């Protein structure tokens, strides 16, 4: 009984959040709806006695990833209401509708035709009523240690890549008034003599 009630409330929150993500015109509202969805999923994890997964869900997804989303949204200033009538890619809207209907049909077909057998999965040896933290830890550091190490390597590569891309090259300070090329090789208009002289100086210096 309790499980059904919890599931119903969590489902409403999850679906409401998901609908909000799609239909919000404001990107910040959409990101917050995503948080609601992630919280609902965390509640469902708790209902399945996967306490550790629930906590990680909140810490990683709701606490870190969506915060980064919001950061990007706020810093890039895309937090205005988007004009969603313009279509940058011709025909993407009908294609999306068609794919969505196809997916929904597939999901309904799977749910209606299959039966729940209750057989536990082969991959995870899960002891019900056991301490889930130590079970996950033991599996991660024995059976799946290779996958975990590969994932951490991937993260290290991503961090190193980000540092290299964010590194500023030493060189003359960019003046706020000066026109700078956006890409290497861009033509830069210098509209007065002083700028010409500056540019010449720079060529000499290098």
């Amino acid at each position, binding site marked *: 009984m*309790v*499980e059904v009630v*919890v599931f119903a409330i969590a489902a409403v929150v999850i679906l409401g959040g998901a609908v909000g993500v799609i239909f919000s015109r*404001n990107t*910040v*509202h959409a990101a*917050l709806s995503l*948080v609601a969805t992630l919280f609902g999923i965390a509640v469902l994890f*708790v*209902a*399945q*006695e996967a*306490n*550790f997964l*629930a*906590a*990680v869900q*909140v*810490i990683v997804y*709701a*606490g*870190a990833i969506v*915060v980064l989303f*919001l*950061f990007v949204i*706020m*810093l890039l200033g895309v*937090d205005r209401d988007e004009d969603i009538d313009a279509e940058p890619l011709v025909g993407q809207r009908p294609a999306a509708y068609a794919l969505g209907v196809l997916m929904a049909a597939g999901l309904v077909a799977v749910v209606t035709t299959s039966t729940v057998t209750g057989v536990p999965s082969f991959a995870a040896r899960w002891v019900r009523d056991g*301490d*889930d*933290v130590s079970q996950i830890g033991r599996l991660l550091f024995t059976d799946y240690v290779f996958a975990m190490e590969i994932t951490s390597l991937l993260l290290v590569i991503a961090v190193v890549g980000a540092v290299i891309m964010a590194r500023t090259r*030493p060189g003359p300070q960019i003046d706020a008034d000066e026109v700078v090329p956006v890409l290497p090789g861009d033509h830069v208009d210098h509209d007065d003599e002083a700028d010409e002289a500056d540019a010449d100086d720079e060529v000499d210096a*290098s």
Partner: protein
Amino acid sequence: MAQLLALDPLLAGDVDLAVVLIVLLKTVIAFTLLLVSVLFMVWFERKAIGDLQNRIGPNRAGPFGLFQTVADGLKFFMKEDSLPDRADRRIFVLAPYLTAVPAFLVFAVIPIGGDFSGDNRGVIRIFGHDTLMQLADPPIGVLLILAMSSVAVYGIMLAGWSSGSKYPLLGSVRASAQMVSYEAALGLSVVAVVLTAGSLGTNAIVASQSTWSWNLWVTGLVPFVIFVIAGTAELNRPPFDLVEAEQELVGGFNTEYSAFRFALFFLAEFMNTVTMSAIIVTLFLGGPSGPVLFGPGWLWGTVWFSVKLFGFLFMFVWFRATLPRVRYDQLMDLGWKILIPLALGWLLILAGRQVGADAGWNPVVVPLVGVVGLAAVFGMIALALRAATRLRALDEEVGV
């Protein structure tokens, strides 16, 4: 489900009216206790800072000005609640609650009393039921604390953004950058405690520290220092209060807030100070554990907990009265370049000690080898960095 929602694992199974009443009673007590301690904390901070700055502080409302906070709170309720023109209304209204609710939820997992001497695990009997003197003891207690502190970022971030004004936005961007970076150091120093205690539950962590084996010295002081520094930054309290640096940002993220909504931010800030002190006491100073001198043991648990808590509350006030605010780049350097590597290195040494203890190796040699190994790695990285800097300078000189 039963583990997390049956607010007390000892009560899972036979839930009757008494159990529900006990849980309700504990909720009311925890909530009232936190609110009263916030009232007291606001008065205490103003009074103590007054003393430290050689002035009197509030002394008009009630004896020693004790009712000053109540008077201020009433004033907040009476004031007009203004909503800026360019504000994003829904989020502007929502943001204060997003800071206040996590602040309270953290307090739910803190053991505030109980007898932890000997083999007792803080269990008390009430109406013929065994229970703990904490609202809930989920098996993931420490993770819940970390999760709530990462959710608290939202309130500040959205408050600044939804105000539709530049100073709050700057304040909130600073705040979220600061809180996200210091969460890493905070989490890493908590891992050291979890490693020593062997559990994530707050009750088990306190129980593992009874008979004076406090994590403060069992983990070797470094995680404690890191946790206090990172905790201060997480609270946005001085010397890390760049979020509301009034000389630069007017009032920071809450500039546009007034009346009840501002009161909620104010409340959340002081609630967080109290709960952060309580977390430090729980993780590093053995929570309510301490000697039972006479009379009932559970009473002494609360006494010891309050004494330790008060020490840290005073520490935070003392920080504010003594230390000048750090610059923003100093704040980021301290967090990323000193605290996180230090916490990581110390965690490796502690893990090595744990493995050594399991395998029966010499308890002195293992940490020593660990320190030497880490020092060698650090030296190599420093050498590589210096070589890279020199090469780059050379490149510039030659003009390649």
